[in-house]
């Protein structure tokens, strides 16, 4: 066979494409803002937008965690119940510590929240990886368990936070720094750290590899069990952070706290561009997805066109349209 002298021309890579795929959710977000302005000019008022984005922080923070789980090929349906459970435990601890430690009981409670989050995530992770149970079923099971625990802890009622703590704690949700509400700052920080972990560390690489092809990952010496379990633990920590921001907003944990958040969280992740079957995760897309969901709900309240009975339906339609915009942008 004759030697061939001509060097092959460099074939174009995917760089540009990748950025484009990432843009999808932001385009959908832009479209939504435009629609919102047409529907009701108040929509773009600073107060309203700040409210909406602040609110979306919970879902955004949890969804950032879910980006790890989903990217690594898992799924977590228990996040809503877990949020309720962690909120309950945290409030109970804070209340118990309050007489002795006063204001200090708040950071102590927060630490406990994170610890509980780690444990809950670990439980989920181990059932899925070591127990080898399909994530959907495993976390549906723990969803029931966490929900039952918060119901039990609250005797089916409410666990309110101590009045004394309430005012000290309030700024965590309602305060601002340089005009930006804390929850927004916290969620940006969480997303920044997450995108660092996912894109800049070995662990992030492993996560995507396990999700993209578990066999290849295993053959490359990556422990699938460890990687997935850690993803669930990260999810647990994110839920704990969300719970910490949540307490001052509503001041109580109830058996209905966080109900159906799991669906919102997964929706945010998918709208954000991460595929449910695993692989590369898109942290910033996820954040955009969470804001999109909250904006849609806000739009429903601000617009007067839709019968109260049909709100859920119109939301459904808008979500599908947002996905179509996302897809067309590719």
């Amino acid at each position, binding site marked *: 066979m004759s030697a061939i002298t001509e060097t092959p021309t460099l074939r174009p890579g995917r760089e540009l494409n990748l950025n484009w795929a990432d843009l999808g959710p932001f385009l959908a977000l832009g479209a939504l803002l435009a629609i919102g302005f047409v529907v009701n000019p108040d929509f773009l008022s600073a107060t309203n937008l700040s409210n909406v984005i602040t609110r979306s922080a919970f879902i955004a923070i949890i969804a950032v965690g879910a980006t790890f789980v989903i990217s690594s090929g898992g799924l977590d349906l228990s996040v809503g119940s877990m949020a309720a459970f962690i909120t309950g435990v945290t409030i109970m601890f804070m209340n118990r510590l309050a007489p002795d430690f006063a204001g200090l009981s708040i950071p102590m409670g927060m630490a406990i929240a994170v610890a509980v989050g780690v444990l809950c995530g670990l439980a989920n992770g181990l059932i899925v990886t070591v127990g080898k149970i399909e994530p959907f079923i495993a976390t549906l099971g723990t969803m029931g368990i966490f929900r039952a625990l918060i119901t039990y802890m609250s005797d089916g009622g409410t666990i309110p936070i101590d009045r004394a703590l309430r005012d000290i704690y309030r700024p965590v949700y309602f305060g601002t720094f340089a005009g930006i509400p804390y929850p927004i700052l916290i969620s940006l920080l969480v997303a920044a750290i997450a995108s660092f972990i996912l894109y800049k560390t070995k662990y992030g690489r492993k996560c995507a590899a396990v999700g993209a092809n578990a066999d290849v990952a295993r053959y490359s010496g990556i422990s699938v069990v460890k990687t997935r379990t850690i993803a669930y633990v990260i999810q647990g920590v994110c839920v704990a952070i969300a719970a910490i921001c949540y307490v001052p907003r*509503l001041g109580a944990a*109830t058996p209905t706290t966080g109900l159906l958040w799991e669906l919102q969280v997964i929706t945010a992740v998918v709208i954000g561009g991460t595929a449910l079957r695993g692989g590369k995760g898109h942290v910033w897309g996820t954040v955009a997805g969470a804001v999109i969901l909250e904006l849609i709900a806000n739009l429903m309240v601000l617009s007067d066109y839709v019968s109260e009975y049909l709100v859920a339906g119109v939301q459904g339609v808008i979500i599908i349209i947002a996905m179509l915009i996302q897809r067309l942008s590719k």
Partner: protein
Amino acid sequence: DKKVIAVSIPAADHGWTAGVVYHAQAAAKEINAAFPGVEVIVKTSPSATAQVSAIEDLSAGRKLDALVILPHSSEELTTPVKAVKDAGAFVTVVDRGLSDPSIQDLYVAGDNIAVGATTAKFLVDKLGGKGNLVVLRGIPTVIDDERIKGFQDVIAKSDMKILDIQYANWNSDEAFKLMQDYLAKYPHIDAVWANDDDMLLGVLEAVKVSGRKEIKFALGGNGMKEIVKKVIDGDAVTPIETPYPPSMIKTAIYLTAAQFVGQAPVRGTVKLDAPLITQANAREYYFPDSPF
């Protein structure tokens, strides 16, 4: 300049809340038509979190002159409602009180404890203080808690025995299943109480199918039209009903509007009774056009 009255209520996800939505919308339509100076906006929310958001949204866009709220839960809504109040709105709280009563200008409520207690008294009375009961409760929330507590407190003072209490999520389907299971588990049941009429429908069906004859009473609560109809017709198993009328929201909206259109001072507390509905007075509580 119109006076804006925002009404924030739970979404119509089961019979009673559907009744609330129906009556709220009816009130809004009537008042908007009757008083050009007042605008009533009704918003529904599927959860406490969503309701907090809705209140923020309503007050972010415009200045509210009044807020009529039927809170999903007391604790969670207290802070946001206080924010609206602090912005100068008149606050009417319906049904469930907030944790801080000083926020409300007007409080319109039914009596959830009475719903349980009245029913329990009736049973104690009719069964001579003896017998086995099974109870179906709804979704773990304050209302559910209060009704069960009212019921249990009265029963505890008699020799009657509550064999079982389980959740059926205010859903007739789940109540049907739960009742079937109760029937399989307990060979002798004297009476059943479902703390909501939606569930009672499922209970009645299960009892009917089982062919069990020893069950003397199957009672509900809330005043659903189908059940009130049974009372009117003199049903032996469901001879009474305790009202917890969703129309209380309408009462509240009208009272709030009166503040603006009639300059009638309406601050205070309006507690609606939970009287026993019997065949004698049932027609007063029968609204065939309401969805509930």
